[in-house]
């Protein structure tokens, strides 16, 4: 980068010097055009070199800007950063475009000539600048559009909130018709009382009006007959007119009260009643105002009209509450829909970049969000799978398909007589253990575990642990028994160990099957019976780095007296890297257990077992056996 700058600087200065030289040569009286032409060629060559260097510098700066770190964490921030980037790129391309203009003074024909020689290059630069300008405009348009949309969003949100508040207020102001009507009736009654309408003698009012009407009629008749106004009693006429007016008012009020007291059953009927009252009062007001053109406003009659109009509006408001709420809710739904798609027209950074660069690159923060979502999705999947597995395990009740039912032999029943009490105690005390230990349990193994010891919601391992913890309160005899049991649990893994194999111990055709627990047979159920046997072979099996069995045999020995420990030591294995499988045979006390007799289990080669099977116990260690027989490996 620095070398470019230095070269650009040097080349620019050199061009400037040559151009100055041309100017000086031109000032001379005898201009040497050949010399000028030569210098022009030099300038052309230098300018091409300068352009090349400048172009490299430009491309480097452009790349730097294009790869600008966009580590901000929102689309809006990124758009602003993108705009800044595009602006910088545009400025860079403008500067480059102006480069030739600043280099040559177009007032000099020689320099103009040179300038024009770079026309194609300049056109290309102009095109590139235009291209960057469009990019800049695209980003700016989006930002402006976002700003515009934000305003719209704000207005819509405000409207939405206002509508919600109005809906809340309206819902609070909804009154049951019975309650509202009772309030109205109270208002009407108060009005009747305050205005003394209840005291109106309607018959007297009618009579007074009729009498006054007669007086007025007489007055007009006399006026018509005499034609002389001077003889007529004006005072009597005026009094009659006043009586008529007062009677009219009383009769109107009486009718009004009748209307007010008319019973209604719902808002619609109440609305109709009040509208009729408003119509009555308006009509009455008009009549009075026609007769009294100079009437002042407001007056009692206009106030009465207003009073009933207000009441009518209250009723109308109640009627309109529900439709208004519905309307507002509908409007809010429209707003929500609008908000949802409001920014759909705006191009995000990813879309912009796709337009500008033609590459679909996800912004960093989008990638992070997607990764997080993916990880959550995977975790959910794991949970679902685990739950499914658990559910299927739970649902998998063992089904026994019955082939045949027959009577038991008396000899068998005789054996069961001896076990009857144990069987009763077992089901009484250990029913829960039947499930906790996987339904199928050994009587001897669970003889001492009671329901209290076994918690159904705990795994069998936890149950066993609890059982072990209970040893704290054991008696001396119990303790001895426990010690004895623990001693017996010593794993048999020396060739020549005499062992007892209980029923239920799994046995296999080969050591690999034994390690991987495939193709198994069960003592007591298949050919092999529970009895005492000898270990006649030992196989050391491999475990992988995760401690999982691989089924690979690392070593096998059939030498009497050799223990698995010694074999492992020879192989340089550590705890967890191996597993011991044993092969058993009948043999005899003289150590003839390697070549087992005919019909002995080892003949069919199906007598491989896991050395640590709990159903296998050492009866006599190999060393003692070998001592007795005098055979075996010399140590």
């Amino acid at each position, binding site marked *: 980068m620095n070398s470019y700058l230095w070269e650009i600087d040097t080349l620019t200065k050199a061009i400037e010097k040559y151009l100055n030289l041309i100017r000086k040569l031109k000032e001379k009286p005898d201009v040497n055009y050949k010399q000028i032409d030569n210098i022009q060629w030099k300038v052309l060559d230098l300018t091409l070199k300068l352009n090349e260097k400048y172009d490299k510098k430009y491309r480097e700066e452009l790349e730097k800007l294009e790869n600008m770190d966009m580590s901000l964490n929102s689309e809006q921030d990124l758009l602003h950063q993108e705009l800044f980037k595009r602006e910088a790129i545009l400025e860079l391309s403008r500067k480059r475009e102006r480069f030739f203009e600043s280099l040559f003074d177009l007032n000099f024909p020689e320099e103009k000539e040179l300038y024009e020689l770079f026309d194609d290059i300049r056109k290309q630069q102009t095109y590139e600048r235009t291209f960057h300008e469009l990019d800049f405009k695209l980003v700016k348009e989006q930002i402006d559009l976002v700003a515009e949309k934000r305003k719209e969003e704000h207005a819509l949100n405000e409207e939405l909130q206002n509508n919600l508040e109005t809906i809340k207020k309206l819902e609070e102001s909804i009154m049951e018709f019975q309650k509202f009507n009772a309030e109205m009736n109270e208002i009407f009654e108060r009005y009747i009382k305050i205005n003394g309408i209840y005291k109106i003698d309607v018959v007297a009012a009618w009579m007074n009006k009729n009498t006054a009407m007669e007086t007025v009629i007489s007055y007009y008749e006399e006026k018509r007959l005499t034609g002389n106004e001077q003889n007529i009693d004006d005072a009597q006429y005026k009094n009659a007119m006043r009586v008529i007016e007062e009677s009219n008012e009383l009769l109107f009020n009486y009718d009004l009260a009748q209307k007010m007291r008319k019973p209604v059953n719902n808002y619609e009927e109440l609305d109709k009643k009040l509208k009729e009252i408003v119509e009555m009062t308006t009509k009455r007001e008009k009549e009075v105002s026609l007769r009294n053109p100079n009437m002042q406003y407001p007056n009692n009659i206009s106030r009465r009209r207003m009073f009933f109009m207000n009441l009518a509006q209250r009723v109308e408001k109640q009627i309109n509450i529900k439709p208004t709420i519905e309307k507002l809710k509908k409007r809010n739904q429209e707003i929500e829909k609008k908000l949802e798609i409001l920014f759909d027209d705006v191009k995000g950074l990813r879309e912009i970049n796709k337009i500008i660069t033609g590459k679909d690159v996800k912004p960093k923060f989008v990638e992070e969000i997607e990764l997080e979502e993916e990880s959550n999705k995977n975790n959910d999947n794991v949970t679902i799978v685990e739950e499914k597995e658990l559910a299927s395990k739970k649902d998998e009740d063992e089904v026994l398909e019955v082939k045949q039912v027959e*009577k038991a032999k008396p000899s068998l*029943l005789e054996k069961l007589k001896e076990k009857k009490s144990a069987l009763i105690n077992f089901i009484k005390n250990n029913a829960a253990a039947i499930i906790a230990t996987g339904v199928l349990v050994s009587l001897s193994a669970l003889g001492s575990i009671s329901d209290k010891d076994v918690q159904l919601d705990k795994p069998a391992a936890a149950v066993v642990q609890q059982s072990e913890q209970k040893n704290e309160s054991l008696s001396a005899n119990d303790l001895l028994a426990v010690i004895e049991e623990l001693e017996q649990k010593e794993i048999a893994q020396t060739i020549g160990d005499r062992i007892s194999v209980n*029923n239920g111990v799994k046995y296999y055709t080969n050591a690999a099957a034994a390690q991987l627990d495939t193709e198994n047979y069960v003592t007591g159920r298949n050919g092999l019976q529970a009895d005492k046997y000898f270990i006649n072979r030992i196989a050391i099996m491999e475990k992988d780095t995760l401690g999982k069995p691989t089924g690979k045999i690392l070593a096998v020995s059939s030498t009497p007296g050799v223990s698995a420990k010694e074999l492992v030591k020879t192989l340089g294995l550590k705890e967890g890297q191996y597993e011991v499988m044993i092969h058993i045979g009948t043999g005899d006390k003289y150590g003839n257990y390697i070549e087992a007799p005919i019909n002995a289990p080892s003949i069919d080669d199906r007598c491989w077992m896991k050395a640590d099977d709990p159903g296998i116990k050492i009866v006599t260690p190999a060393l003692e056996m070998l001592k007795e027989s005098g055979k075996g490996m010399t140590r």
Partner: protein
Amino acid sequence: MKININDVITLTDNRKFLVLAETLFNETKYYYLIELTEDGEQIVDHVKIVKELKEDNGMKLVVVSDPNEINDVKDDLVASLEKNNFE
């Protein structure tokens, strides 16, 4: 195929069980079984509580694994076993 106390049941996989006790609960038969060797001569000290499921073409025994269900039938099975003289 009817199952009674002291019957030996042979399964399709040749496993053998002896019926120690039985009870009827919610119209379903429950049995307390003990496993035998393949030849049916020896006891294998493994026990199961099963219930009978009648099907069109035979019968199935389902191992009971619900602790509540076991508790429901346990006492009746004990009573049935107490009455069994293995004769």
